[in-house]
C-alpha cells in the first residue's frame, strides 16, 4: 500500500453532492435520472453511476423550485484527464393524461478543481420533426426522446436534431482529487495565481 502511495499510477476523483433543484416553470411533479458518461480511461471505483430520484412537486413560494436534494456520491479512478466525467441528467414527469414524458436533458462536466461548486444546467428536449408529429405526440403522450440520454454528453450527431429549452437544473458538487498533482496535472486555481 505504501509503495502504491509513493508512486501512484492512477489519480482519483471523488465527487459528491446533490441534484438540488430544478426550475421548470411549465411543469410539475417531476423526477430525474442521472448517469455519468466518461472516457475510456476512466473507471468508477465506488458509488452509484446511475440513479433515479423521487417525484417532487413545486414549491408554493414565488420561486416555484422543484427540490429533489438527490445525493450523488461516486469515485472515479483514471489515467488520463481526457474523457473527464460528465453527469447527464434527464428529467421526466407526467403530462396531462398521465403519460410519463421527458421534460429535459442536460449534461455538465464534473468540475475540475477540488472544492465546492454549483452548476446550473439548462435542460432541453428534442423537438418533433413536424407540426403534425407534434400534435400526435401530444395526443398520444409519446414525445420524442433520445434513444440514449448519453447523447447529450457527446458532440457527435447533434446536427440532425432540433431541441427546445425547458428549464434548469441546479447541481452542487463537492470535488476531491487525489494524486493529480503528483502525476503532473495541476488543476487547483491557487497554483494558477502564483505558479
Amino acid at each position, binding site marked *: 500500500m505504501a509503495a502504491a502511495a509513493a508512486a501512484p499510477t*492512477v489519480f482519483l476523483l471523488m465527487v459528491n453532492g446533490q441534484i438540488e433543484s430544478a426550475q421548470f416553470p411549465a411543469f410539475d411533479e417531476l423526477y430525474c435520472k442521472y448517469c455519468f458518461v466518461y472516457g475510456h480511461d476512466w*473507471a468508477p471505483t465506488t458509488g452509484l453511476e446511475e440513479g433515479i430520484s423521487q417525484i417532487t412537486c413545486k414549491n408554493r413560494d414565488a420561486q416555484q423550485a422543484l427540490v429533489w436534494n438527490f445525493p450523488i456520491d461516486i469515485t472515479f479512478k483514471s*489515467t488520463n484527464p481526457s474523457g473527464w466525467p460528465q453527469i447527464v441528467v434527464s428529467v421526466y414527469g407526467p403530462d396531462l393524461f398521465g403519460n410519463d414524458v421527458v421534460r429535459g436533458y442536460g449534461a455538465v462536466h464534473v468540475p475540475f478543481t477540488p472544492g465546492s461548486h454549483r452548476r446550473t444546467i439548462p435542460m432541453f428536449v*428534442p423537438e*418533433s420533426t413536424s407540426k403534425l408529429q407534434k400534435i400526435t405526440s401530444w395526443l398520444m403522450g*409519446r414525445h420524442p426522446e*433520445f434513444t440514449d440520454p448519453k447523447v447529450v454528453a457527446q458532440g457527435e450527431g447533434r446536427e*440532425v436534431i432540433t431541441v427546445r429549452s425547458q428549464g434548469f437544473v441546479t447541481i452542487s458538487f463537492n470535488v476531491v482529487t487525489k494524486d493529480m498533482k503528483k*502525476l503532473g496535472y495541476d488543476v487547483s486555481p491557487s497554483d494558477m495565481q502564483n505558479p
Partner: protein
Amino acid sequence: IETSFAEFSIRERMREKLKAARVQTDFPSAEEAYKFFTFSFDPDPENIKDETKSKKKSESNQEEEEGEEQECDEEDCLVNNREDLFIIDQMARDFLVVKPAEYKSYSERLQKEREILFTPSILTVPMSQKVPENMQPRYIEDEGLYTGERPIVSLSNQNILENRILRQEQGKRWFGDDGKLLALPSPIKQYSTRPPIFSLEEGIEPELETLYRKAMKPMHANQYIVGSGDPQGQFQLDIDISGLIFTHHPCFSREHVLAAKLAQLYDQYLARRQQNLTKLLTDKLHALRNAVQSSLDNSGTSFLHIYIYRQTRRLRDAEQEKDRTLLKTIIKVWKEMKSLRDFQKFTNTPMKLYLRKEEVDQRSDKKIYEAEIQAEINELLEEYMEEYEKKMEEYKTELQEWKSWKKAQKTKKKKKIKQSQDQEEEEAENSEYVEEPVKPIPPKLADSLEVEQQVREKAINIRRKPGEPVLIPELSLTGSVTPNDLCPRAEVLRREDVKKRSLFLKVLFNTKEVSRTISRQISSDFRVHFGQIFNLKIFNWPESLKLQIYETMGFSSTNLLAEMFIPVPETTVLTGRARTEEIEFSSNQRVMLDHEGVGSGVPFSFEADGSNKITLMTSGKVSSSVSWAIGENGVPLIPLVSQQKTGIPSALKNIDAVASIGTSGVTDMKKLAKWAAETKLDPNDPKNADLMQLIMVATSGDACVPGFFRLEQLQQEFNFASDEELNRSKRFQLLQLRHREVAEFRNYKQVPLLEREITEKLFENYEKRLRERDVIDSKDHLDAHRALVAKYLQKVRESVINRFLTAKHHFLLSDLVNEEEVPSLGNLGLSLFKLAEPKRPLKPRRKERKKVTAQNLSDGDINLLVNIIRAYDIPVRKPVLSKLQQPSRSSRSFNEMFAASPSPQSPTRSIDWTFNQVLVHPFVEVSFQRTVCRTTAAEGPNPNWNEELELPFRAPNGDYSTTSLQSVKDEVFINIFDEVLYDVLEDDRERGSGIHTRVERHWLGSVRIPFSTIYFQTRIDGTFKIDIPPVLLGYSKEKNLGNERSYDSVRSLSEGSYITVFITIEPQLIPGDPVREKLYYLLKFDTQEDEKLLQAAEKYQAECALKFPSRQCLTTVVDINGKTVFITRYIKPLNPPQELLNGHPNNSQAAAELVARYVSLIPFLPDSVSFAGICDLWSTSDQFLDLLAGDEEEHAVLLCNYFLSMGKKAWLIIGNAIPEGTTAYVLTWEQNQYVIWNPSNGRCYGQFDTFCPLQSVGCLISFDNIWFNIQQYDSPVRINFDISKPKLWKSFFSQSLPYPGLSSVQPEELIYQHIDKAAALELQGRIEKILKEKIMEWRPRHLTRWNRYCTSTLRHFLPLLEQFQGKAVEDDHQAELQKQLGDYRVSGFPIHMPFSEVKPLIEAVHSTGVHTIDVSNAEFALAVYIHAYPKNVLSVWIYIASLVRNR
C-alpha cells in the same frame, strides 16, 4: 370564522387549559406542562367559552387605548399575547396602530443634516496635500513613460472628488505621483465603431444620405481587375524613361573599358568621401581614448571601454587602408589610360583626371603622426602586457602541476627502490619515458622595439606619410576626342559601327507590351537619351512592370539586349515626387567584332603580350522613374489597395498593423519607419505596439521574412509536444491509435498514465499485422494464388471497414431520437380491430420478445439456446460381413428424383436384413466457441431428443456493440455421434458380477450454422440436412420400408439424414440494420447508372416493400468498387469450362450437375461476415473466379450464367433460405418442371421438394427483367413460377418502361487456365503431412500409429469418390477393407470440402473426433486426395479411419 367546528372546539379547549394554568401562576409548573402535552382533553362546559370571548375583547380594547406606552409593560404583554398565538383567526387590523405623521421644521432638519452629512468643497486642492509629505510631484510622462490620455472630467467634479477622497482614511492612496487622481487611459475611441443609426423621420445629414445608383456589370471577371464599375482608365501609372548608360558595350574600345572603370572607381570614391568613415572613426577613437584614460585614472580599467576602443581602432585601420588602396587604384587606372592613349595615339573619351594636392603643415602633421604612432605603440604594448600576464598565470599553474607530479614521481621511485632494487633503473626509466608531461615554457615578454616597427610599417602602408600632400582626385570630361581622320582604320570602323547602332525600349505591363520608346542612336560615349514619359492608363492591378532593351544594327535585325523588371511603385509615390532611379541591366550575349571594339563575352587584354585577360559582358544602367499620376482634382489615380493580390510577402501583409494608422498597403518599411520617427509616435503606447513591432521586424535586417507560407501560423505555439516526441512516446501512440479506432485498440480501457507501464507486448499484435499485410504467409495458405487472394480480400475488407467507420459517425435522426410515427388511418383501424381480438386465442402466435440493446451487456449475459428436437434417417450400424448389392443410382433421371408422388421402389434387400438390423445410439453434440454440450443418447435411426442446450456466448474483446457482434465469425457445430458400447470383459466368468464396457463415439455427420446467421435471423427453426460423408465405414443408410406410412414414404424419397433444431439467442439482440441504410445514403450517388433508371428502381422497390415488406426485392447492388449497378447487368450467358462439358457430351443433366458441383467447389465466404453486415458487394463472375471466394450471390450468378450458356432457361431467385437467411438461388426449367439449385453446395431440388432449404421467393431476375412475387404465398411449393402472368409476378420493365438494353458488366467470355495437376499433387502431399502431424499433436498421451496398408487402400477409394461426386459411391468400401485388412474393426469416413485454406480442413478433421479414440492398440489411416478443376478450383477429399484389431 370559517374553521370547522371540530377544529374550533379543540382550539377552544386548549385555550381553556392554558388559561387555567395562567390564572394560578404566570408560568405553568413542570407537571402541568407535562400534562398539557400528554393529557387528553375532555370537552369542557360551554360557559367558559363566552368568558374567553369577553376577555379577548377587553384585551384588544386595552391595546388600542395603550398606544405607544405599550413598551412599559412588555413582559406582561408578551404573556398576554402568548395565549393569542394560538388564535389564528384574529384580523390584521387588530395589530395595527394609527399614528399622526411626524414633522420636523426645516431649520431643525438642516441642523440634523449638518451633523450627519459632509459636503466637499469645489475649490482646488493644493498640491502639497495630495502628494506624500516632503515630495515633489513627479511627472511620469516627462520621463518618457507612457501614461495615456486621461478621461475628461470637469474640473469642479474633479475637485469635489479630490476633496472627498482626502477626507477619507488613507485618501492619499488614490493619488499618483503626479498629484493627480489615478485614472486609466480614456477608453473612448476617436471614431465611432458602431454604425450610425438613421431615423428616417428626421432630416438626414447630407453626408449620410444614401443615393440610389443603378447596379453596374463589372467589365471583366478577372481577379486582377481593379475598378469597381468606375470608368475605365481611371488609374494612371507614369513611366519616365530618361536615358541609358552602358557600362560595357561590345563596341567599347580598350580606352572605353578603362574609362568606364575609372568612372566607376571615381563614383566609389565620391561615395566614400561623402560617408567619410575614416574621419568618423578617428574622432570616435579619440573620444574613446579619453574615456579610457579617465576611467583608468578613476577606478581601475573598464574592460568594456578598452574592448570597444580596440575594436574601433581595428575598424579605423581597415577603413584607412581601403581609402588608400582606392586612391591608389584610381591613380593606377588613370596612368594605364594615359599610357594607352599614348600607345594608340588617339583619344576616344573626354575623360580627364586631375589630382589636386592639398599642402599640409609639415611640422604639425609630423607631430600628429608621431603622437598617433606613439599612442598606438603604447596601447599595443599594454595589450601585449595583458596577454603576457594572462599567459604567465597559465604558465604558473601549469608549472605547479608539473612540479607536484614530479614530486609524486620521486616518492614513487623511492618506494620502488625499497621494494625491488633490481628493477629500479629499468622501471624508473620506463615510467619517466611514458608519463612525463612537458615542462611548460615561460612566455616571452613583447619587445617594444619590435612592436614599434610593426606599427610603423602598418602606418606607412595605410596612411599618408607625414608631410605628404593630401591628394584629391577630380574627374572631368573636358578632354578632347581625336577626330576620325586622325585615327587608325580599325578605330574608324568601330566608330562607324557605333553610329549604326540604335536602341529602343519596350515597356511591358503585366507581360504585355504597352508602349515603346523611339529608336535612338548610341552616342560615342555610349549614352542614350530618351526623355520620354509614358502615361499608362490601367485598370488591371500592375503585377509586373518590365523594360526590354532592343538594339538595332543598321536596317537589319533587332536584337533583345536585356530585360529588367521595375518595381511597382508604392501608393505614396506620386508623379512629381518620384525620384529617378538607376536600374542596372546586363546581357550574357556573346558578341565578337572585327574592329577595335572589345566585344562582349570575349576575353581581351590590355597588355601587349596578351596576358591578364579579362572578359566583360554587356551591361549598363537605365535611369527611369515610375509613379502614380495625379488626377485633375489632385486625387491620386491609384487603385484600391484592398484588391491588391500581388506577391508581396504575405507575412508582412498579414500583419495589418499598418491599417490601424490609416495607410494600409504601405510596403516600404523604411519609409514607414521614417514616418513613425517624424510623427513622434509614442512607442510605449499599447495602441502602437503592433506597428512598432512591425517596423522593428522590417527594419532590422536579421529578422527576415520567412520564405514560406504557414496556414496556421499559431499552430506551433499550441503544440504541447513536438511530433518526434509524440512518435517516441508509447502512451501518445496508444492514445492516437485508439482515437483512430484501430481494431486492436478500439476499446482499450485505461491507457496507463506512465510510459513505463506500457509494455511492448501491447503493440506486438498490431505491428505484426502491419508487417504481415505485405508478407504473404504461405504456411497458412499453401498456395501462392490463394495467399494473394486472401491478401486482396483483407485489403477490400479494410477499406470497407474504414468506410463503415466513417458511416458510423454519420448520424440520422432515428439514431438519436425515438419518435412515434404518425399513425395512418389504416393502422388506427387495425388497432381498433385488435381490441376485439380474443384474449386467449386457440392458436397462439409466438410473441416477439423484448429486444435488448447491445451496449449494456457483458460477458455471461448472452446465451445461445439450441433446441435439438429430432432427427430422421440416421445411418445405422451395419452388421459385419454382410455384403449387399446395390443398384447404381447414377442413371436416374430428373423425373425420378423430383417426382411429386413416390414412385414405387421395390426393396431389393433380403428380408432377413430387417431382423439383423443393429440399432444406433445417436446423440448430438453442439460445440460453440470451445464450449461443448451434448444430449443423451437416443435409440434408433429416427431419434427424438427434444433437449435444450444452453451455450454461453462471448463477444470478441468483450465488445457487445452491434458492429462487433456482426463480425463474429464463430460457427455452431452440431455433430451427430453414435455411441457404441464395446464389451471389454476379458473373462466370461466375471460377466455375472461386473460390467466392463468401453464407450466409443463414432461421428456420423454434422450441421454447421454460422453465428452471424443466427444473429441476423434472430432465430433458426427448421429441419436441416445433415452433412453425412458419402461413406461411413461400418454404417449404412437404411431405408426402413417396414412401416409404410405416407409421411415416411415422402421423406424416403430424398436421400440423406435430417435434423430438426431450433436455435435462438437469449436475450434477443437487435441486429444492426440502420448501418446498411446509412451506407446506402453514402453510396447512393456513386453510380454510373441512368438517373431515371435509378428513380424507377427506387419507386419499384418502394411499391414492392409496401405490399410485401418481408419479401426480398433487389434492383440495384453495389459492385466491388462501391458503385451502384443495376442487377440485371450481372446476368449474361458465360461459358463453363470445356472440360466439364466434355465429360458428359450426351447427358445434359449430368453436365448440369457437374457444373453446379464446380460452382459449389469455389470457396464460400459470406459478405455479411467479412464486411460486418454492412452491405453485399457483388463481384462479377470473372472477379469471382479470380478471387476464388464469394458468397451466395456470386455463386448463384455464376451458376445461372453457366446454365444460360448451356441453353437452359435460368433465373436468379432472391429469397430466404435456411440457414443462410437472405440468399440467392438459381431456378431452371427442365423437362416441364422447375428445378431449384442451391449454388453453394451444388444440390438441386424439385419445386415440390419439401426438404428444399429455400423457404420463400422474393423475386426472379433474368438478364432483361426483374419479377417480384405478388402471389399470396411465397413458399416455392405453393407458388407458380410462370412469370408471364402479370397477376402473379410484377415485372420491372414493362410496356410503360421498356427494357433499355443495358450492357452487361460481365466479361465477354471466361478464360480458364489449364489444370495444374503437379501443383495439386504437391499440395495433396503437404496437406496430408500437416493433418497427420496435427492428429499426433492432438493425442499427446498416446502413441499414434499409422497403418500404411490401410492408408494406401483408402487412397485408392478417393478418386472414385470424386468421380461419382460422392453421390453414387460403391457401398462396398467396408467389404473391400475387410477383405484386405482381415480382423480389424474399421471406423472412418471421407470428408469432402472445397479448398480455401488449411485451417478449415484441420477444423473439420478435429470436429469429427476420430483422434479421440482411447484404445491403446488403435491405428490410424489418413489419405488426402485433391482433384483440380480448371481455374485452380480444388476439391479436397480427406479419408480418415481408425482401426482396432479384433481379438
